[in-house]
């Protein structure tokens, strides 16, 4: 089976957010970058399916130089090779542009299974998986929490409000992974050493036959006009050193009479 897993490098969630001087982007000077947490479930699933059914796992990511280290991490977890989609023309891509780049890179390879995280932590758009499926003319199932395989047929559980959708189908398909799907492995020392020898190919816009006007900032249909810190919440009323019964009664009174929420 040929399996692709598309990952994104994102700021560590513990990052202290500082707004860049342009007023519309993140100041990346002191940011640690990691593989987006949901992508790890996608990678783990890719590796499990390959280990059970045979085949190859190829990791893809769009981004600047630093993204190579994220792809090395995926190779260290066990992916067979990686494709780093890097080009000045890719910069400033929105979800539409990213999907075009990824779809162009995935198209020729004939993947049976294409996995994404359900969304990239940070920008939290959750768009690229379904968009790539549409561009490739493939079905998709997003926010998958459980998967069972029978040859090339699968049954997926997709998380919705207070319920699960049960989705059945056959390959090829695009899936996006939600927490609960599996327990992602850590890269072993042996894996980290092996990763250094694995293929990590850099591919640009020309090789993909992409029109630079359709991608990057030029092709973007959405752009951040401003990035700001959220308005500070005013100091709350905190009840301290009170008898538990009195505190409980006072809180209920405040929620009823002042906040009017109960």
């Amino acid at each position, binding site marked *: 089976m040929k399996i692709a897993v598309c990952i994104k490098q994102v700021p560590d969630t513990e990052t202290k957010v500082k*707004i860049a001087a342009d007023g519309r982007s993140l100041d990346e000077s002191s940011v640690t970058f990691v593989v987006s947490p*949901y992508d790890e479930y996608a990678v783990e699933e890719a590796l499990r399916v390959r280990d059970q059914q045979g085949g190859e796992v190829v990791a893809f990511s769009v981004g600047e130089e630093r993204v190579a280290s994220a792809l090395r991490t995926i190779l260290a977890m066990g992916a067979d090779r990686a494709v780093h989609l890097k080009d000045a023309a890719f910069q400033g891509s929105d979800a539409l542009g990213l999907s075009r780049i990824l779809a162009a890179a995935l198209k020729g390879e004939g993947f049976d299974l294409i996995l994404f995280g359900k969304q990239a932590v940070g920008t939290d*758009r959750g768009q690229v998986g379904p*968009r790539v499926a549409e561009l490739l003319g493939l079905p998709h199932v997003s926010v998958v929490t459980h998967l069972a395989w029978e040859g090339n047929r699968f049954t997926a559980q997709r998380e919705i409000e207070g319920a699960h959708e049960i989705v059945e189908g056959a390959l090829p398909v695009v899936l996006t992974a939600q927490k609960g799907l599996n327990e992602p492995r850590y890269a072993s020392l042996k894996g980290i050493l092996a990763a250094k020898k694995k293929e990590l190919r850099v591919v640009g816009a020309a090789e993909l036959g992409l029109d630079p006007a359709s991608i990057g900032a030029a092709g973007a249909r959405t752009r951040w*006009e401003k*990035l700001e810190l959220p308005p500070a919440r005013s100091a709350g009323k*905190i009840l301290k050193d009170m008898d*538990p019964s009195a505190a409980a009664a006072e809180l209920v009174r405040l929620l009823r009479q002042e906040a009017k929420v109960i």
Partner: protein
Amino acid sequence: MGHQDVLVFVECRGDQIKRPSLEALSEGGRVARALGGKLVALCAGPGTRDRVSQLADLGPDRILLADDDLFSLYQPEAFAVLLADAVRSTEAGYVLLSATAMGRDLGPRAAAKLEAGLAADCTQVEVDGGELRVKRPVYSGKAIATVRFSGNPVFVTLRPNVFPLVNSPGKNPQPEPLKIDFDASRLAVKTVKVEASEGGEQDVSEAGIVVSGGRAMKGPENFALIRDLAKALGGATGASRAAVDAGWIDHQYQVGQTGKVVSPNLYIACGISGAIQHLAGMSSSKVIVAINKDPEAPIFKLADYGIVGDLYEILPRLTEEVRKLKGNS
């Protein structure tokens, strides 16, 4: 119809119109009026025929009804064809969906068909000089991005429970049937059923009140304290990642990053310190209450109200007070 018109996708599960879709329709009406355009509601599902009257109060100029059996369960490919067709035929320039599980899946796929931009999970929409500008939380809610669009149409998904329901009755349009040219037998991947989660409780993402427990719950048995308070308040039970990862409660209850994003009117965090992963999921709640032993816990910085104390002493008393209050009203 034209580019200043707003089309709102109205989601149904079974024969129920989802409340977040009504919020989207209400907001869509406001946007349409500001743009000088018309408001179109697109309703999908065979169970919705008798429910479209619910939409009238929100003032749609047209109601498109796709009540084919094909739409009884959510099939992403078929729904994307439906939505994209409706946008093309109405020439609506703006497409609103609620950022529910369905909206967040359908929006991108339909937007891809139309080569359109989409801003997801927005908490504010403004019309400025005939153009749309939206705000959405990013980086775990630690920053707010203002997004502008180019091209047409524009897709926006709206965070549930954020936008008010404002009635604007007037027209009472007859639903117009909408069919699509789609061969259901070509679906190689198909939703076959919906299974309610165990317990059949209210989902955190849909509840007006959420009571969540964290690390201080110490074990699964103590979640009874959380459930009791949630029940007394008519709310839903939630949990922090720490409690879920410890195996005390199922992942479907998790609020925060790698869990669910909630915006209830009242969020009560019990024994939750307030790690950024948790704050990412609940910081847009209208009123936040923290109950924690540690007065230095970061959750108190976000809280509108709080009690510093032992939750094992406070929660049972709180539940009792709420029951008393509800009993008297």
